[in-house]
C-alpha cells in the first residue's frame, strides 16, 4: 500500500511538472474568403466586342464571330476576352461559388433591339502568359446568353479557378433593322 502511495505521489509530481506554468496561448481565427473576378483585359476600361454582319447575310442563320475586341486582351487569342473567376476559402470547409451573367437588357440601336439570346460564346483555355490561368481546372462551358438576369454559367468549389477565353458570335437568326447595336452583359461572382 505504501509503495502504491509512493508511486502515486511520483505520478502526481510528474503531472504537476508537466502542468508547470501553463504556457501562453496563440489563438488564430480564419479571415474571410475571397472572390476574384476578371472579365476582359483587366484595365478599368470595359472591353467592347465587335461583330460585323455583311448586309447580304443578315438573318441567314450563319453565325458571325467577333471581328475585334477593344482594347485587345493580351492574355487571350485575337477577338476573344478573358473570363477568370476564383473563389478562395481560408479553411477546408467546402463552399461553392457561382458565376452568373445578366443579359436582360437587349442590344439596341435607337428603338430597335436585338435580344442577347442572339449572342453565343465559344470557350477555349487560355494559352499562358501573365494571368494565363495555367492551373485552371474548371472550364466555363460554351453557351448562349439567356436574355435574363442571373443566368448561371458555372459553379465551382473553393480553392478552384474557372477561367476561359471566350469568343463571342452573333447567331444571326432574324432580320433586323440596319444599324449599330450596342449592349452590355454584367458578370457576377457570388459565394454564399
Amino acid at each position, binding site marked *: 500500500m*505504501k*509503495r502504491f502511495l*509512493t*508511486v502515486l*505521489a*511520483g*505520478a502526481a*509530481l*510528474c503531472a504537476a*511538472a*508537466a502542468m*508547470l*506554468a*501553463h*504556457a*501562453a*496561448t*496563440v*489563438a*488564430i*481565427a*480564419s*479571415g474571410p474568403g*475571397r472572390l*476574384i473576378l*476578371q472579365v476582359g483585359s*483587366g484595365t478599368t476600361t470595359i472591353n467592347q466586342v465587335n461583330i460585323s454582319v455583311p448586309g447580304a447575310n443578315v438573318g441567314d442563320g450563319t453565325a458571325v464571330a467577333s471581328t475585334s475586341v477593344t482594347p485587345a486582351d493580351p492574355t487571350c487569342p485575337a477577338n476573344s476576352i478573358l473570363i*477568370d473567376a*476564383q473563389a*478562395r*476559402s*481560408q*479553411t*477546408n*470547409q467546402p463552399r461553392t461559388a457561382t458565376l452568373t451573367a445578366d443579359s436582360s437588357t437587349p442590344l439596341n440601336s435607337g428603338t430597335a433591339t436585338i435580344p442577347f439570346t442572339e449572342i453565343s460564346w465559344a470557350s477555349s483555355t487560355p494559352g499562358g502568359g*501573365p*494571368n*494565363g*490561368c*495555367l*492551373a485552371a481546372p474548371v472550364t466555363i462551358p460554351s453557351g448562349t446568353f439567356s436574355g435574363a438576369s442571373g443566368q448561371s454559367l458555372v459553379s465551382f468549389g473553393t*480553392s478552384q*479557378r474557372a477561367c476561359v477565353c471566350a469568343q463571342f458570335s452573333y447567331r444571326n437568326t432574324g432580320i433586323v433593322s440596319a444599324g449599330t447595336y450596342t449592349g452590355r452583359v454584367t458578370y457576377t461572382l457570388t459565394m454564399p
Partner: protein
Amino acid sequence: MRRTVLLAAGLFACALAQAGVRLDDSLSPRQRVEATTRFLYEGVGNWNADQVSALVAQVRGMEFRLRTAPYVGKNAEIYLTVADHVSGLKSPTAMRLEWTTRGRFAPGSLVPGTRALVYRGKITDAVMSDFFDFTIYLDARDWERGLEFDPVFEIDVVP
C-alpha cells in the same frame, strides 16, 4: 529507502518522458494573444494550388519572461517548441512558425512537433525575457476551424 528509490525512479521516468524541462513562463504579461489569417498571395495571379491555399497570420511583440533562477550559473540550451497536435489543424505539417526577437533569444522557425534552439550559454539571470514577433504560415486545406497552440520553452542543462 525503498520509497525514495521508487520516487526517484518515477521522477527519472517523468524527466525522460518530457525530454527537456519546461520553463515556467507565468511571469509573461500576456497569456493569450489572438490573430487572424490573411491570404499570403493576394489578387489576380497565376497561383498554383499551394499558393491559393497559403495563409499567414502575425503576432507582434509577444513578450516571454522565463523563470531561469534554478539554472543561474549553469550552461544550458533553451528551446522553443510547439506540440505536434495543434487544435484545429489536420496535420502538423500544415503549419510553420517563424519568429524574430529583440536579440536576447535567437530567431528561428519550426513546425509543430519539433523544437528550435533559441539560446545557448551560461544562465546569468533569474528571469530571461524577450519580445517575439511570430509569423505563422498555414495551409487552408488542412485547417478545420480556429486553431490554438502553446509556444513552450524547454531548457537542457549542458556540460
